[in-house]
């Protein structure tokens, strides 16, 4: 088991956003968390990436206690994330955005950076190469030197994901990776996410409201409501769970797409 949450509770003032939640994500999975708005999904992600500290409960990753880690140490331990509402470095170029994703693995010292030593140059070159591999994978090479703020939202989302995986994490946390994308783009992203798992061996924990993505690529789905897990299982199990239909999916419209 790669990631394990035990009895995690998070509250803000009087509001309990996550309530006694248990969650287990196995290696190599695409694991989805779904649930109504405000159910506490993003909060969970924020706990794993250590932006929040739960009031109680434990979170362990590869058997290691995550809660003792500082936020900036999380990436080095193999967990990376994207953001619900893209959180890019908007006045930096696409390439630089990706390179920041490699930050913990660049070891040159301040001095060798300042004096541009050979070692530093080599390291930078190597880093750029990796970045270009990612750009290739995402088909974004032609945007490499553009500032991200000038790019369409869809592309920004891709860069957000690209920045998250450049460090080759074990676990990737995706918060609504296809929100705001059209069907074509969603399909492309679905393929990409599957490839990340298959080719790079990245375990994926994602939150998404787009059921065409969730139901297509997830191995396992947890459903949350009011901070609690109300169901967990495979796609079919979840899809047919009346509680899930009532709280989240709603009645399937008969005339959709006809």
């Amino acid at each position, binding site marked *: 088991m790669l990631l394990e949450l035990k009895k995690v509770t998070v509250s803000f003032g009087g509001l309990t956003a996550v309530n006694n939640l248990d969650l287990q994500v196995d290696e190599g999975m695409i694991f989805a968390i779904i649930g109504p708005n405000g159910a506490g999904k*993003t909060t969970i992600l924020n706990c794993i990436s250590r932006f929040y500290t739960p009031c109680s409960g434990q979170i362990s990753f590869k058997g290691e206690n995550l809660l003792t880690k500082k936020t900036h140490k999380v990436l080095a331990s193999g967990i990376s994330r994207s953001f619900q509402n893209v959180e890019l470095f908007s006045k930096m170029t696409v390439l630089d955005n990706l390179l920041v994703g490699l930050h913990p693995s660049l070891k040159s010292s301040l001095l060798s950076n300042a004096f541009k030593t050979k070692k530093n140059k080599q390291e930078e070159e190597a880093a750029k190469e990796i970045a270009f591999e990612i750009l290739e994978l995402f088909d974004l090479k032609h945007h490499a030197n553009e500032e991200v703020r000038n790019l369409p939202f869809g592309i920004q989302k891709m860069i957000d994901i690209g920045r998250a995986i450049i460090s080759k994490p074990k676990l990737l946390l995706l918060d609504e990776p296809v929100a705001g994308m059209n069907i074509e783009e969603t399909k492309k992203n679905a393929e990409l996410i599957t490839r990340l798992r298959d080719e790079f061996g990245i375990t994926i924990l994602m939150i998404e409201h787009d059921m065409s993505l969730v139901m297509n690529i997830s191995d396992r789905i947890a459903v949350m409501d009011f901070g609690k897990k109300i169901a967990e299982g495979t796609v079919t199990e979840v899809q047919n769970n009346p509680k899930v239909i009532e709280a989240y999916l709603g009645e399937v419209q008969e005339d959709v797409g006809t």
Partner: protein
Amino acid sequence: MAGQIIIGGLAAGSLYALAALGLILIFKTSDIVNFAQGEMAMLITFISFTFLTVTKLPYFVSFLLSLVIAFIFGMAVERIFMRPVQKAPILNQIILTFGLYMVFRGVAGIIWGYTPVGFPEALPNKHFNYVGITITINQIFIFVVTTILMLGFYLFFKHTKIGLAMRASSQNIATAKLMGIGVSSVFTRTWGISAILGGIAGILIAPVTFLDPNMMGEVGIKAFAAAILGGFTSLPGAIVGGLLIGVFEGLIAGYVSSELKSVFVFALIILVLYVKPTGILGEKITKKV
């Protein structure tokens, strides 16, 4: 002695708070720290002084007249200088106000010279003695004016739609426009009003600091400090911050070292901010990811 020091500190503190109000008003609506606030106050005080001495108008008439001019002046500054750079980075706008500060000070120097002159007090100069503590009517008057203004604006921001609109404009100009808020005229009027506040501050402070182009230098810095200590967006915070600085400064000057009182004040501010990074009454608003 401590009692008198505290009274003196409170008096100085209410000057700082008074000078801070206009600063906060502009900050609340446009996120700009107006470095020229004190100099605008100084110019208006000079204008009021001209009414008093050249045209020999009565005190309160020249007071009111200069506030009318202040309103126009503030609006003009916004229209001419701030409006064109509304979309530039905030820091650039702030540096622009620094440019205004230099020009206003320089122009005042050219027109009125740098020799300090006395300025009349608002009320007849009487003072009370009570258990060995002296306090003047004018000190009480300044404190009362400051408190009333603060409360007035506090309620205005909290409970009126225009107040709400001003806060919204500072957070997101484009979306504020989508609400139907005439953002431009909100900004213009804000500058007008804060120039009025500046004028009131200047006219009430001038009897203490005397009138010359540098009159607001020290007060301006302390006002900025008071505003920040209080939380910068909080009007009651300005009073709390101002009074705290005034009293603390007095105590340090009285019991520790008068030369290092500013050093101690700033150490206090850093300490307070270290414990509460958004100031005493400032609210921490987290960004959610």
